Every structure is written in structure tokens, then in C-alpha cells.
């Protein structure tokens, strides 16, 4: 009788203990599930973003070729920012920063691309890839367009190039690119890029038939030099990003010129006499590149570089053994 009573007294204690253990298990698995699910959701978002930004992030591989455009569609109304860093020891890098929440949680370093953009908060972004030649091809410029732009007095060749490249994709990305001769015709909310008008958001000057010139930004006292398609890159970019990427490009140009210079001497010694003058011109070109400061206000350094570039192009054009 006493034993039975003792057993009955122990039963509720065991029941409680059992409930607590099972409850703890259920809670543990519930928390584990929630944690895993959140983690997987984060990974999924990152994977979707990486796939969307594949054009920018994949090294030595791009789904769009030079002289083409495409649209990047991000998962949600996202924020995209491009940073740039440059050192004397390498080609520098772009850092692609992306966020959907406000804080940049996702960033990736891109070393083989030259990405020009303003901070963008938009789902559909227009991407244009242009070649940069000075006078030989140096690299491709990747322009990210996420705002409406109005160009005033843009030279015909740049206007035609931009219109040809963006005519189908600009509408799809819901981006308006306007071309006028008077700034008053521009839409109010567009970023205004004007020739010789300092009252616009971006103002540029031209030299030698708009082969090169200077560019300045409304809120920035600094002036920068541009050459060829770099005008468009500068127009769609922030000043600091433009300066950094332009310096990276000039460094790449120097290295390519060194390779071409050695090749010109080698081919000349192999009997291709028509290229004999090229080596010395490329030598001059490298020296001139060394003296260029992209944030210089005077275009004289670019004027002499442009002359050398024209001479190089002339010699190469008539040579039997063309280098580029």
C-alpha cells in the first residue's frame, strides 16, 4: 500500500520532466528551423543577386560584348553602388556594393572591369559596354545607367553611338535618354549633361573635333580630362569613380603600349621596315602618359598625347605588319 502511494507520488514528477524535455526538443528544433530557413533565404537572395549581376561580377566573362547593351534586373527595388580603388602596384579594382535593406551587406571585388555609374536605387538597370581606344583598344567601359539623362550639344558620333546601343533596352529599363540643343527642353528630373554650360549637372568641353576635352560636375570644383568614349563614361559616373577608373585605364594603356613597343622593335628587326617609327612613338606615348594627371585643368597634356596617338595610328595603319 505504501509502495503504491510512493509510485503515484513519483508519476507527476516524471510527467513534468518528460514534458519539459519534449518541450525543449520542440523549441530547439523550431529555433534551428527558423535559423536555417533565414540563413537559406539570405543565401538564396545572395545567389539571385549574384546571378543578376553576373554581367558585372564574373571575371573574364561577360554575357554582353563590346558595343552592346543589356538590362540587369535585380530581385527587389535595390540599391547599387560602385567603389573604386587604385594603387601603383596593380590595375586597381571596382567594388560592387548591393543592398535591399539600406545597409550594404553584399560586396564583391571586380578587377578586370571598369564600371562607371552613379549610386542607383532601381530594379531595372541599363548596362552599356563600350570600347575604349587611345588609339588602340585598351579595355571595355561598362556603363550602368539607372537615371534619366538629358544631353545638350552632345557631338553626333557619341549621340549616334548611344542611341544605337540603347534604343531597344532603354525603354524596357524605363530609362529616358534625351538629346537636345537647348537645356530648357530637358525634362526637369533628368540629369543634365551639357556642352560648355556650367549650370548643368555635368558640363564638358571639346577639343580637336571632340576627340578629347574636360568635364566638370556641378557640385564639384575639380575638372577632369576625358578622351574618346570616356566622355560617355564620365557623364554616367560620379566624379571620384571616374577619376579612379580613368587612372586605372591609363595604367593599363601604359602596359599595353610597352608590349606593343617591344613588338614593334621586334617586327622591325624581323624585316617589317614599315613599322620602324612606331617604337619611338610608343616610347613617347608612354612618357606622355606618365605626365598626365586626369584631374588637371589644362588639356595641353592630352593635346600632345592625342597627336602622338594619331601618329601611332597612322604608322600602324600603313604598316604591312599591323600591331593592332
Amino acid at each position, binding site marked *: 500500500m505504501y509502495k503504491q502511494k510512493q509510485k503515484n507520488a513519483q508519476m507527476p514528477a516524471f510527467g513534468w520532466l518528460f514534458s519539459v524535455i519534449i518541450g525543449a526538443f520542440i523549441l530547439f528544433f523550431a529555433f534551428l528551423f527558423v535559423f536555417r530557413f533565414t540563413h537559406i533565404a539570405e543565401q538564396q537572395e545572395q545567389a539571385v543577386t549574384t546571378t543578376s549581376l553576373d554581367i558585372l561580377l564574373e571575371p573574364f*566573362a561577360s554575357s554582353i560584348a563590346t558595343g552592346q547593351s543589356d538590362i540587369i534586373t535585380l530581385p527587389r527595388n535595390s540599391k547599387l553602388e560602385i567603389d573604386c580603388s587604385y594603387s601603383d602596384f*596593380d590595375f586597381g579594382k571596382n567594388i560592387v556594393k548591393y543592398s535591399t535593406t539600406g545597409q550594404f551587406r553584399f560586396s564583391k571585388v571586380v578587377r*578586370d572591369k571598369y564600371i562607371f555609374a552613379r549610386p542607383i536605387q532601381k530594379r531595372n538597370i541599363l548596362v552599356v559596354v563600350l570600347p575604349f581606344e587611345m588609339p*588602340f583598344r585598351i579595355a571595355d567601359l561598362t556603363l550602368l545607367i539607372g537615371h534619366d539623362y538629358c544631353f545638350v550639344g552632345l557631338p553626333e558620333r557619341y549621340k549616334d553611338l548611344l542611341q544605337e546601343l540603347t534604343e531597344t533596352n532603354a525603354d524596357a529599363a524605363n530609362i529616358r535618354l534625351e538629346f537636345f540643343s537647348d537645356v530648357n527642353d530637358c525634362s526637369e528630373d533628368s540629369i543634365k549633361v551639357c556642352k560648355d554650360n556650367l549650370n548643368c549637372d555635368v558640363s564638358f568641353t571639346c577639343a580637336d573635333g571632340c576627340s578629347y576635352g574636360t568635364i566638370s560636375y556641378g557640385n564639384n570644383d575639380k575638372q577632369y580630362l576625358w578622351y574618346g568614349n570616356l566622355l560617355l563614361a564620365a557623364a554616367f559616373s560620379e566624379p571620384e569613380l571616374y577619376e579612379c577608373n580613368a587612372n586605372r585605364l591609363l595604367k593599363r594603356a601604359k602596359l599595353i603600349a*610597352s608590349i606593343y613597343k617591344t613588338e614593334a622593335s*621586334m617586327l622591325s628587326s624581323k624585316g617589317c621596315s614599315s613599322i620602324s617609327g612606331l617604337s619611338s612613338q610608343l616610347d613617347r606615348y608612354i612618357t606622355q602618359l606618365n605626365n598626365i594627371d586626369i584631374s588637371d585643368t589644362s588639356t595641353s597634356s592630352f593635346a600632345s598625347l592625342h597627336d602622338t596617338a594619331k601618329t601611332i595610328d597612322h604608322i*600602324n595603319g600603313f604598316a604591312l605588319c*599591323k600591331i593592332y
Partner: protein
Amino acid sequence: MKIKIKHQEKVRKAQIQIQEMAFVLVGLFLLFAFAFLGFAAWQTSLMKQQATSLRLEKATVMINSLISMPELACSKQLGYCIDEDKLVLFKSYIDKYELLFKSARINYIAVKRIFPKIEDSVECNSDNYPNCNLHVLYNKQDEDTIIHSSFAVLCHYDMFTGNRCDIAEVLVGIKPET
């Protein structure tokens, strides 16, 4: 007494039915578990196949991008090909490009002349090219490296014949993502 026996029989019958149901439930559970495992294995192999073909596609695009680098590409006049004269010179500048290749997980780049065929494997340098068949541009490969290849035209300037072109295989080693 009779009632007690009948009750015991009922209890036994119920126990057998419970056991039967438990066996059926265990059987069903095992059946679904095996079906799920089979499906998961099939999906995994499908994903692996897709990953392999995607990796191959990316490697091919990467090789094409490397070939069209201005440091290696032929002149516009010749079109899409590798300039062997540049290739020989590029070797001495390769350290400047190391970070660039590392960021793309590239740890081996070589160009192998496959036509005209040279019997022995002769590594090229500025003195013996084009009478050689292997240009090793960059070699930091390890045991994990997966070598991908693509074919390209390899051209050089010849003082007697002008530009002379051969067929080459471009080999690129990529370290897989961990």
C-alpha cells in the same frame, strides 16, 4: 469465467491489429523514405550535370575573353586570333596580371600549337618561336586545377610570307570554388 476468456481474446485481437498497423506504418515510412532518397539522388546528379555544363560554358567564355585581351589579340586586319609575337612578349609582363588572374581563379594559361604538328614537345621562347609548340604563360596550378581548352588561330609575322597562321589549343586551368 467465459466472459473473462472472451475479454482476453478481444484484447489479443486488438493487440495484433495494433501490431499490424504499426508494421504497415513502418513499411509505408520506409517506402516513402527510399522514394525520397532516390529522388534526391536523381536531383543531385542532375544538378551536378548542370553545374559541370555551366562551368564548361563559363570556361569557354573566359578563354575567349583572354584571347581577345588587347595584350594578346591580333590586329583588326587579321580578326579573331592570338598574336604569337605578343604572346612571347607577354610572358615577361605576366607578374603584373597575377592579381587579375587570381581574382578569376585562373592558375594556368598555355597555348599549344597543334597544326602544323611538331613531334616533340618544345617550349617556346623569344629565340625558338615559331619552331616550337608550347607557350606556357602562367603556371601556378595545383592538384585541384581543372584544365579547360578551346581552339584558336595563332598568327605571327614572317618576313617572307607576311602573316602566317597555325592552329592552336588554348589551355586554361581554373581552381574550382570551394
